């Protein structure tokens, strides 16, 4: 048979001519590292420029952006809010907050252990965190930190960063999940960078010293904050946390206090007697 059709035959194909000899793991790491570098660099540039552009928005416009927060407080809760407002008033003076930058503090009666500053100069202080603070100085330190965020225009800068990064990434990666200003609205806590947090800590302790003449209460706040973070630290490994760890924030404050020779042992201002009543703990 074969002698009648000798021109039909299949040679054995040499191995490896149709495939690449490059090691897949090597290729993988080469590509992945370059990809991560490109994405990180793009995000960094976009974040910086977005933050800068948004910081140029006048505060008046920012107020318009943030609608009025619906206030629905019990009479006792209003007293708590008035107390917080009084403290914020002192802080505004100490920090030289300009008149066109009104700051509104809101008492939120729930067990969340949080406090944050957001667009339009609104501060939200949750009962859960307030309940942990034992004197007025610590509360002032907390409020001063949030006021400093408003003074530094951190909420709008952070919004600009997130908007620029998510738009850029959507274009780069071909995804379209740009819902930054979704239903959650503007009253959510925005993520602030490490530098923003550290510079607000400095500003806050400065204000604290201006108001009380000493820095007692500053360290206490960070000690309390570090106990709150316990649960989070278990679920999130250190290097993923964008918020600076409390130790390093505490370290920075301690250094600053030693540098400026501030006293940390001054008398702390006790909380008003009716403070617990004002909290209106609903369980």
């Amino acid at each position, binding site marked *: 048979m074969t002698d009648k059709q000798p021109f*039909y035959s299949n040679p054995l194909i040499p191995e490896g001519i149709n495939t690449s000899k490059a090691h897949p793991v090597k290729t*993988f790491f080469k590509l992945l590292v370059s990809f991560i570098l490109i994405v990180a660099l793009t995000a960094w540039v976009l974040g910086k420029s977005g933050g800068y552009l948004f910081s140029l928005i006048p505060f008046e416009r920012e107020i318009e952006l943030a609608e009025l927060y619906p206030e629905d407080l019990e009479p006792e809760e209003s007293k708590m809010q008035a107390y917080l407002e009084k403290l914020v008033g002192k802080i505004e003076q100490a920090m030289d907050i300009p008149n066109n930058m009104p700051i509104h503090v809101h008492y939120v009666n729930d067990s969340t252990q949080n406090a944050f500053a957001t667009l339009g100069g609104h501060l939200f202080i949750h009962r859960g965190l307030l309940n942990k603070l034992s004197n007025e100085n610590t509360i002032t330190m907390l409020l001063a930190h949030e006021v400093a965020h408003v003074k530094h225009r951190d909420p709008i800068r952070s919004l600009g960063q997130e908007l620029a990064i998510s738009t850029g990434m959507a274009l780069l990666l*071909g995804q379209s999940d740009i819902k930054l200003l979704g239903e959650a609205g503007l009253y959510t806590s925005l993520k602030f960078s490490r530098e923003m947090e550290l510079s607000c800590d400095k500003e806050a302790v400065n204000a604290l010293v201006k108001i009380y003449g000493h820095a007692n209460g500053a360290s206490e706040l960070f000690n309390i904050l570090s106990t709150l973070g316990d649960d989070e630290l278990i679920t999130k490994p250190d290097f993923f946390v964008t918020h600076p760890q409390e130790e390093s924030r505490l370290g920075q404050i301690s250094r600053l206090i030693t540098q400026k020779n501030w006293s940390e042992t001054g008398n702390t201002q006790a909380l008003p007697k009716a403070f617990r009543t004002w909290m209106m703990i609903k369980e």
Partner: protein
Amino acid sequence: MYELFFIFILLIISYFIGTHREKKHYKSLISREKVLNSLPAISVKTPPKDKAYNQQLVIGNVTISVDYFKRFLATLHNFFGGRVTSYETLLDRARREALLRMKEAASLEKASLVVNVKYETVAIYTGRRRAIGSVEILAYGTAMIPLDNEA
């Protein structure tokens, strides 16, 4: 961020499983190709006219999927351009397997030759963003079965 760990573990597992299965498949391909090398499969359209043949359609069909690691690597290749090396072995294996299956079908029919061999390739899209998950390759041709064999 925790998803990253999960993805990384999946990548490692799928890399080892995928590589193992690929090696095994290549081993089997090489040994079976040697056995079936005596049965030529060619793309010539005109059948030999030296004697009388029964002619019959023979097909070989295979669907192979890439592992998670290769799919991930292909996404990176898509970003940078260039050879999508992680899909090359997939297609190579699929073509050879399909041709082998076709030849096996032809050898069952006692064919001495398969002419007019062609391939059809279909990418089966799966998952998010229409990433290619698996390919189906169909090899088909006309088996030439010598009549004197049947006598």
